[in-house]
């Protein structure tokens, strides 16, 4: 073990309350007291890890400092994806920070420090709800939620996908809440407070699961923080300050029954912080010794008010190491590197210490796969864990991100050199706006700026925009991602899925077109670096041109952004000789001008996730390279670690895929279909209008065009199932618009409208059929609860359920409140169930048909609808004796009707009233079977 105290990590000697290492290990954050405010500082990890980097003046030590907290910062925590930093402080606020991509170094205006910020971290949200100091914050696994706890005795769960939305407030503590930890499996969150209790809350319903008080009954409220921690295998929860026989301990709580039989003993004063190593270890196999099957174990660091630190392995009875007198004051926070071998500890005395372990000391860390296996063995394949398996792909991502990170410093140093030309007192703005340097603009700013008078005679200055923010990009990308993901409607309701989505859109944003050279582009006759040069050189040319045309319009545009500005559009063809004639103008080409659907905007690049098992990612990069003057767009698909890519001559508007095919619609109205391995299956299909929405399912491809026509093809059989069918009949007469659409596994298209109605198109009948109407009174009043068996209670899954969504469960709730007379409700329920049955039939959803048929049968049996029951049985049985004139179909949706009857009969047998009917059909079924 190596121990280092980097003296340069200091907040001017003020206490450091919190430290957290970024998931990628390249930086860490500290939080604490500033001059007259709270302070968050982001530090470079490299000088801590390597001595030569520490000595090298060109390697920055401090990356960014933020003085925005009004009072002392008690906690800093990186999100698991590393994109955000959350900080909480005595000013009752939680701030969420994000790195701003476009700005170079600058100082904080008005701060006494003249050190430039190398990175810019910008507060993107401020979360206000607590009425007292925020003591701890914690991101849930997969960054779905952010939890914060406070001296106001509450814990607030924030929706990390939609700040500042509050999911819930956990109330129950009667003292200052000073620590939080999430269960790595995502089922619980635990909190420890000054009220001598540790509480475990369920994330499913946010109720208290257990309240542990015994080990804390002797504790006095003397520690500043109580940072507890959950082991990476989820089996143990370790508390901060607990007491055993009047001695301070860290209590170990077993997940199984929340037993409190063990503790970590030895510290002389209260334990302030416990932090588990993120890795699970197994014993290092020594050469020569026989490989013994050993249990995997965890590693845990404990820091105390007695200024000492102990590190424990759950496989050892005694601590692995104890370090005394590491600090002059209490230890406040501990953080591990993601690889599990490094640790940073901070103290109230304003210093930090870095501990570097070797694998000989800790053991061999399990890789993600082995860790997942452990999770699966213990907890089964819960969603959180399958997500984690998918997350393992982020490890593949990291080198890419790393590469990107390495490229950036280069760009920054150049901008720093330019910045040196400006006076010292101004921040080093290096933006060159439309070819004109900022210096030139500043000289004439007073003369140039537009000043008007308002109606009441006041001066009004229009400020000059010198840089645009890149904040708006994410939602737009997201919406497109979701649109093309509608096949996953059911799945997308599950929060962690979204977490993954957003990560991927983020990533695609983080790799601008210029940096990711299309190396895999096999057909490129040019050297890829050459084509890259062209891309880089062209925009300034265009920019200068624009500049002369419009000196007033001074805007810096991010390279590679879609250019919306009309003037820019004019300038662009100069640089790119090939003019895009197919720029989408919805409706212009369509014959029926009355109906228009939204066509997606062309984006520079986007990534979408298709399917869940196996997960497939489609990455689109438009204008990826220029080959002989023509711009080439690239489509990359990865599934199960297998990748393929292909190129298209036109910009890609939308892409989607299924387990069998991948479909891509381009700006030039062509639709291309590829096999799962990237083979082109069809020549480009020419669409009658620009694409609005595209779906794939199995071998079916569905295209909804901007002129509101629908087509569905079976690519395997190469036939059209639906041919240019107009949405006129469902859209006319109302001002509803298409809000979502999907394609079932059986190739049945479903279109949902903004008025809550959903239709599917039956290709056999050539009709639009109403399958969902959210305003439908039947849905509201139908009550068939007592017809649900225990296994039905979970509901069905399939296209019908996906379209109807939550209305059903809501209806069951509503039915409890409704006071309709019984016979009316009976009739409504019957009508509703028949509607469900026929909808499932027309959607060709076998499982749902069976599901609803059983419920329907139970209902008519319970309520005694004999006629209907008889008709149903008759249809299921069919003619017992063969006759050529019979048009009876022996199967329905692939189910043999007589098998279904055999399943239905026991239900009928439950009502004595239908004894005869039961015997009658049972006998006939027997006869048929004997034949």
């Amino acid at each position, binding site marked *: 073990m190596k121990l280092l105290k980097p003296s340069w990590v200091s907040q001017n000697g003020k206490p450091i309350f919190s430290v957290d290492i970024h998931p990628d290990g390249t930086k860490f954050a500290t939080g604490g007291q500033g001059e007259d405010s709270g302070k968050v500082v982001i530090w470079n990890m490299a000088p801590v890890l390597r001595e030569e980097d520490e000595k090298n003046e060109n390697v920055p030590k401090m990356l960014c400092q933020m003085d925005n907290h009004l009072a002392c910062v008690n906690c800093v925590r990186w999100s698991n994806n590393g994109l955000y930093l959350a900080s909480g402080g005595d000013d009752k606020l939680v701030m969420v920070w994000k790195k701003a991509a476009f700005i170079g170094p*600058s100082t904080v205006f008005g701060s006494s420090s003249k050190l430039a910020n190398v990175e810019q971290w910008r507060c*993107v949200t401020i979360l206000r709800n607590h009425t007292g100091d925020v003591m701890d914050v914690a991101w849930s696994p997969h960054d779905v939620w952010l939890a914060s706890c406070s001296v106001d005795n509450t814990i607030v769960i924030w929706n990390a996908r939609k700040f500042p939305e509050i999911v819930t407030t956990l109330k129950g503590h009667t003292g200052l809440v000073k620590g939080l930890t999430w269960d790595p499996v995502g089922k619980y969150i635990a909190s420890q407070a000054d009220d001598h209790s540790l509480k475990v809350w369920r994330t499913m319903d946010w109720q208290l699961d257990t309240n542990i008080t015994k080990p804390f009954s002797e504790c006095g409220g003397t520690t500043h923080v109580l940072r507890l921690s959950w082991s990476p295998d989820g089996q143990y929860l370790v508390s901060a300050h607990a007491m055993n026989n009047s001695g301070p301990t860290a209590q170990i709580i077993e997940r199984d029954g929340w037993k409190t039989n063990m503790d970590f003993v030895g510290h002389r004063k209260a334990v302030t912080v416990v932090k588990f190593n993120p890795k699970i270890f197994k014993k290092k196999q020594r050469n020569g010794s026989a490989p013994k099957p050993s249990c995997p174990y965890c590693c845990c660091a404990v820091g105390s008010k007695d200024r000492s630190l102990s590190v424990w392995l759950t496989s050892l009875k005694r601590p692995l190491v104890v370090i005394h007198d590491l600090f002059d004051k209490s230890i406040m926070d501990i953080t591990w590197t993601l690889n599990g071998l490094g640790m940073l500890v901070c103290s109230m005395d304003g210093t930090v210490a870095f501990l570097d372990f070797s694998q000989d000391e800790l053991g061999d860390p399990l890789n993600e796969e082995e860790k997942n296996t452990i999770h699966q063995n213990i907890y089964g394949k819960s969603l959180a864990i399958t997500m984690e398996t998918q997350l393992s792909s982020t490890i593949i991502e990291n080198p890419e991100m790393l590469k990107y990170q390495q490229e950036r410093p280069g760009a920054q140093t150049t901008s720093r050199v330019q910045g040196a030309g400006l006076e010292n007192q101004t921040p080093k703005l290096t933006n060159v706006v439309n070819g004109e340097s900022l210096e030139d603009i500043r000289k004439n*700013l007073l003369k140039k700026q537009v000043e008007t008078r308002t109606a009441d005679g006041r001066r009004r200055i229009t400020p*000059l925009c*010198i840089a645009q923010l890149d*904040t708006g990009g994410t939602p737009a990308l997201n919406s497109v991602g979701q649109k093309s993901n509608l096949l996953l409607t059911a799945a997308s309701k599950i929060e962690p899925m979204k977490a993954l989505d957003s990560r991927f859109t983020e990533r695609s944003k983080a790799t601008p077109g210029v940096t990711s050279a299309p190396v895999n582009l096999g057909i490129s006759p040019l050297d890829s670096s050459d084509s890259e040069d062209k891309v880089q050189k062209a925009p300034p040319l265009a920019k200068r041109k624009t500049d002369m045309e419009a000196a007033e319009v001074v805007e810096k545009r991010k390279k590679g952004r879609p250019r919306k500005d009309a003037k820019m559009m004019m300038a662009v063809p100069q640089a790119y000789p090939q003019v895009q004639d197919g720029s989408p103008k919805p409706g212009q080409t369509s014959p029926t001008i009355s109906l228009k659907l939204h066509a997606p905007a062309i984006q520079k690049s986007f990534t979408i996730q298709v399917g869940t098992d196996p997960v497939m990612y489609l990455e689109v990069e438009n204008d990826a390279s220029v080959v002989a003057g023509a711009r080439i767009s690239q489509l990359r698909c990865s599934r199960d670690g297998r990748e393929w890519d292909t190129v298209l001559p036109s910009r890609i508007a939308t892409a989607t895929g299924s387990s069998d095919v991948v479909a891509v619609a381009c700006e030039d109205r062509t639709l291309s279909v590829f096999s799962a391995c990237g083979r082109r299956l069809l020549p480009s299909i020419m669409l009658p209008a620009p694409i609005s929405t595209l779906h794939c399912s199995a071998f079916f491809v569905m295209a909804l065009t901007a002129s509101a026509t629908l087509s569905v093809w079976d690519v395997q059989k190469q036939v059209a199932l639906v041919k240019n069918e107009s949405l006129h009949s469902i859209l006319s007469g109302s001002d509803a618009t298409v809000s979502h659409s999907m394609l079932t596994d059986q190739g049945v298209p479903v279109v949902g409208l903004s008025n809550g109605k959903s239709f599917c198109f039956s290709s056999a009948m050539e009709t639009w059929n109403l399958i969902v109407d959210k305003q439908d009174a039947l849905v509201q009043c139908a009550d068939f609860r007592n017809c649900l068996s225990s296994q039905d209670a979970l509901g069905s899954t399939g296209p019908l359920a996906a379209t109807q969504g939550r209305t059903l469960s809501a209806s069951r709730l509503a039915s409890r409140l409704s006071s309709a007379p019984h016979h009316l409700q009976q009739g409504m329920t019957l009508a509703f169930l028949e509607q469900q049955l026929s909808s499932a039939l027309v959607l060709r959803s076998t499982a749902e048909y069976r599901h609803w048929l059983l419920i329907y049968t139970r209902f008519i049996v319970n309520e005694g609808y004999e006629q209907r029951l008889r008709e149903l049985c008759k249809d299921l049985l069919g003619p017992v004796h063969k006759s050529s004139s019979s048009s009876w179909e022996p199967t329905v949706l692939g189910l043999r009707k007589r098998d279904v009857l055999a399943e239905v009969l026991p239900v009928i047998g439950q009502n004595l009233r239908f004894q005869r009917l039961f015997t009658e059909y049972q006998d006939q079924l027997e006869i048929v079977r004997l034949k």
Partner: protein
Amino acid sequence: MAKVQVLNVAVLDNPSPFGNPFQFEITFECMEDLPEDLEWKIIYVGSAESEEYDQTLDSVLVGPVPAGRHMFVFQADAPNTALIPESDAVGVTVVLITCTYRGQEFIRIGYYVNNEYTDAELRENPPLKPDYGQLQRNILASNPRVTRFHINWEGCSEKMEDSENVDPAPNAMLPPSCPPGKAPPLGLMPDNSMDCL
């Protein structure tokens, strides 16, 4: 978190004769499009003794402000000498730049200003009645004092309950900490000027 961050204020035309207009080039960044204008003010503190000599030199609306980084030059006429107590004309005083959104002040930037005679003779024996024509104004541009306040960016000017949102006293600016190596270039700062600060 403030939606508007002031990134820099450059003091133009400094030092300059007392009668010249003030010019500040302000660079700020806005997190998202602001539906309403920002209101900027320049306030000249006429006397350390009392707020009643504060002069608002000018106030200006700035807008529209879309998300992004913006700059503008705020020019305001020199203070009305008739409103300045004669005893306070020469020496150190303060000029404040404030910005409000929806009637709530969220940033206050203060600069120390030293008014002195350029002429050595006048400096030694200043006239009883200040000769504004001979006075030079020197703004201590390298040492702005910035105070930020949390405001409710969404709602109108209704005050939030938090104590940090209470409007600061107009003279809440703290005295500059003058580290030995970084002595302000305007000579000695009279002790009594601290009283107001």
